């Protein structure tokens, strides 16, 4: 092989591995995606800076998704440095956007939005529809995360609602770009008049991401509306929240349909997860309304709401069962045997299973807090919820060590137990029993138990 053939070979192989990286990302096999992208990076000769930066950028993106923010930042900085030096604006915009996503994922949505705005600015200047679509997605995501900071009392509900509205506007733009003309509805034609009139980009995966994000946005928004109903002094907030849950459900159903049509297992499971969350959250809003109706003596309404609560909850349960059924059994923790050895980290199915158990755990915990239960039922629910949360933590841990999802689940569980007055001893006993039952390790819970349960 002469130098030229070697050069050609390296370039083609590098691009091919980079493409495989995208393929594994699309399939939710992030671990394999990392392997392929590293392969692509190793193939690059130093002179091919433009293409080398593609692999660096994509690697940063996947590390960001996995919650490995140190590596993500390391790679994206290298990509940006190269692309700034090359002065090619389109790839540079894509790297700014990746940087924005990493910042948002690492809980700095303000910086995330700034980066995505830079990408958007370039996309407008270069009239690049794909970059614009991705930047709108990134911006919408950053604004949604910003809006969610009301939960940490970092902003008022009104400010949060404003962020959600901004997120909605950005996602609408992304949806316009990623929806081919032949699939556009009347609703689209109206919103198109307000759009920036970019070309359409036929990339179904991005359309799915947008629909999924819109669904998640409305779920978050509904929660805000519900939890802050007393601020607005109106029952109509409950109705508004219900409407928002319905919108969330509609978007997630579209996302599920798209994923099903394309036979995307991971994306389907992901959207079903989010759909289950929307139904689950909706069922608790309806439960709140039911409780209020009982207090106010409106029996007729209470009966109607009781049915709605039941239906919504059943649908949520059905969906998480469906996810578990559709994910290959291979990934599931077995009684007394733990994981199969071949289950690799970085597989998004593990993330989906983690979420399945997280929701089951969360719903059990909320049942304890909101339903009228006998002490025995309560105890049973607390133990069941704890077990499900522990399984969720195990899946998250196996998916990728120290993810934000794992941290959030642990915190939720321990706070819940703390609120119920459960002590360290009780928690340790429960956890040991679960470890034995499933042959799993839950070491990551110990420091938090010590911190929060005394």
């Amino acid at each position, binding site marked *: 092989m002469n130098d030229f053939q070697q050069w050609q070979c390296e370039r083609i192989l590098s*691009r*091919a591995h980079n*493409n495989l990286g995208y393929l594994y990302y*699309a399939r939710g096999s992030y671990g394999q995606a990392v392997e392929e992208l590293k392969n692509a990076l190793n193939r690059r000769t130093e002179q091919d800076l433009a293409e080398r930066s593609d692999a660096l950028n994509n690697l940063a993106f996947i590390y960001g998704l996995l919650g490995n923010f140190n590596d993500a930042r390391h790679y994206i900085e290298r990509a940006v440095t190269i692309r700034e030096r090359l002065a090619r*604006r389109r790839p540079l915009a894509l790297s700014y956007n990746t940087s924005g996503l990493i910042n948002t994922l690492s809980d700095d949505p303000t910086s995330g939005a700034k980066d995505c705005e830079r990408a958007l600015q370039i996309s407008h200047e270069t*009239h690049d*529809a794909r970059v614009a679509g991705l930047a709108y997605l990134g911006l919408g995501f950053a604004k949604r995360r910003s809006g969610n900071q009301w939960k940490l009392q970092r902003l008022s509900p009104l400010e949060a609602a404003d962020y959600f509205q901004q997120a909605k506007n950005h996602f609408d733009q992304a949806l316009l770009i990623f929806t081919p003309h032949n699939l556009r509805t009347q609703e689209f034609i109206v919103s198109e008049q307000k759009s920036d009139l970019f070309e359409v*980009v036929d*990339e179904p995966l991005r359309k799915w991401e947008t629909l999924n994000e819109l669904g998640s946005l409305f779920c978050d928004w509904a929660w805000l509306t519900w939890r802050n109903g007393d601020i607005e002094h109106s029952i109509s907030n409950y109705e508004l929240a219900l409407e928002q849950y319905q919108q969330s459900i509609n978007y997630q159903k579209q996302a599920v349909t798209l994923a099903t049509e394309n036979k*995307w297992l991971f994306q389907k499971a992901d959207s079903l997860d989010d759909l289950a969350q929307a139904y689950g959250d909706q069922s608790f809003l309806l439960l709140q309304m039911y409780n209020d109706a009982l207090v106010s003596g409106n029996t007729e309404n209470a009966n109607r709401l009781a049915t709605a609560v039941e239906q919504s909850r059943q649908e949520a349960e059905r969906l998480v069962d469906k996810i578990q059924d559709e994910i290959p059994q291979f990934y599931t923790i077995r009684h007394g045997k733990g994981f199969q050895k071949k289950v690799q980290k970085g597989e998004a199915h593990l993330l989906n299973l983690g979420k399945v158990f997280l929701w089951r755990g969360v719903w059990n915990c909320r049942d304890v807090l909101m339903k009228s239960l006998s002490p025995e039922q309560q105890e049973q629910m607390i133990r069941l919820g704890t077990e499900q949360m522990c399984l969720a933590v195990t899946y998250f841990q196996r998916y990728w060590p120290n993810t934000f999802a794992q941290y959030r689940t642990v915190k939720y569980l321990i706070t819940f137990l703390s609120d119920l007055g459960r002590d360290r001893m009780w928690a340790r006993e429960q956890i040991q029993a679960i470890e034995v039952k499933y042959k799993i390790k839950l070491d990551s819970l110990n420091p938090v138990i010590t911190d929060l349960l005394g």
Partner: protein
Amino acid sequence: MLNWRPSLALDTLAIIGRDTEQKAIQDAVAGLLSKPDGQPLSVAIIWGDGGVGKTRLLRSVIDDTRNSGFATSGIVDLYHADTHSSLGIEQAILRGRVLANPNSLIPSTGIDPQNEYFVEYWDQRNQLERAASEDTEPSQLEKLRKQLTDKFVECFNHWTATTPGLLVFDTVEYVQFGRSLIESICEIRHGAFEVKEWLTETLPRLRDTLVILAGRGPQQTNEQATIHPSDSPRENLWRELLQVFQPHLIQSPFNLSGLTPTETVTYFQAVATAAEAQCQRIRARAEITRSRGGLSEADELDAQANELDEAVQRIADISNDEVTCHQLCTFTEGRPIRLGLVLDLLGFGIAMDEIFHPSNTWLGLETAILERLSSVNIGFPVADTLRYLSVTRQGLDSELLHYLDSTLDEAKCQERLEAMQSFSFVKVRPTTRMVFLHDEMYNLLDELRVAYDLDPGYRELYRKIIAYFAHRLRQAGLLANEREAYQLALVHYHMRLDPGEGYQIFYRLVEEAMIGQRIELELKLIDEVTRFYQHPQYRERAINARVPPDLLERHNAVRLVLHFLRKNDNEQASRVAETVLALGPSVYQQLVADQGQILATIPQAELAQARRVFATDDPYFWSSLLTVYGEAQLYLAQYAQAERVITLAIRLLHAEELAHE
């Protein structure tokens, strides 16, 4: 001062033997002048072989129409790389001075020299160039380009409402290389940046204008074979142009042939008259110089005049000798460039019977003429500079000549180049001051040189030229167009020195241009290599160097897929890739579900050729194609197919790596 003398093959004052064409064009000009504004385009097509006098006719038309109040940019020669894009053509029309008649008394200033009518066009063009440099999305660039063309048409028509216009395009046959095989079979047009599309779509929108399209006609001759000898792209090109311009033609295409024996006599007589007049001018100059005390210089001028006088006498003798005139006419096929070569030799005192024998034909004669010419000394051996000129087909200037022959300083080089311009077969490009040979001369020298492998002397010369352009490319602060010109020159000369190595350099530069989104450069590079393959002997050498023309067609296929990917048009990218797969060996055909349907859409005439081009097991080509096809499939969410083709691409290359290990 060099002992150079004016050529005898001067342009005669009146053009000879082209009365019909001149009359028809003059009528069209008169028609445009007499009718009100807003007249649709008029078109004249002139066909003729090399050296038959097309360019001379065009110059004459330009001078005549200018005198009639027309404005023109001069001749836009589509041979030169800077006119190989639609932007380049517009620039050539507006800036002018592109191959204007160097002997014309009226300088070519281009259209709208005061920049009154095209201000908006230039503003918009600057915006487009800025957008291109800022990595603007390709579809948007194409949109901007189309808007710019609209603006050009608008400004042009506004301008011709006051002054009728004349646009003259020479060597139009070079436009035939615009479209690749894959673009043709997939019926894809890039449109906005391509020359043929510009000619066929923009020209018909111009008003109050006479357009002349000149070039070698549809008849394919041996010297201009095609990449694929079974094709006739030149014929296709003219058919397409005729179809488009049919409603605008002032007459059927003019097919220029050589001068008749009678016209040859007239030509010689006219040359003798012109030379005599020149002789008188030199004598007058000698007198003035002498009166100012420049005695030795005056003596030199007198000597030149005497020499010229003798030559004039010899020409007059020939013109009076019908038999010789007839023989010359037969030998040269009446082509003025060939007659000019003979005259040049006569000018140096070489007798007719020394030059040729009656039993010779031109093909045998030309070598003898060349040998004679090479032995001429005009203060320096003509052979020396002719050798440099013969290889520098991208033009030769004093700086390059100095680099090639460091024993001469740059001023000396400039003097020599100016001296060479006295020959009828040497021309200068006014925009760049680059010196060229006439096409006929290049072809003649090429045949002698490339019939076999290059001799060591020429190889060394090419190496030096390449080193010169590589050195220029390394210089700091180059303008984009300078860098582009040097890159094109590098590819040009590398391909001729070593087609294998040249192709590699071309490939890398094209890839670089694609990444940098320099569409114009990309097209020019492709054009450069396509033209290289037109030459049968170069093509032969390229095949021996394992870089056959089919390689370029396959490369074009991968490039096209990449173009659509870059435009986010993944459907089109997939369609192109699947067409190629369907044409390939069975292992690749199997990757496409509806191969029969795809093949049915390809015109029969192109199908066999396409099958042959893609019937290859070249792992680099297939892995490239599969990788970019896989990418398009990924974006279209066809993950199973994407995985299938990308892993196959990887397997192919791993097998190749193993084979080499």
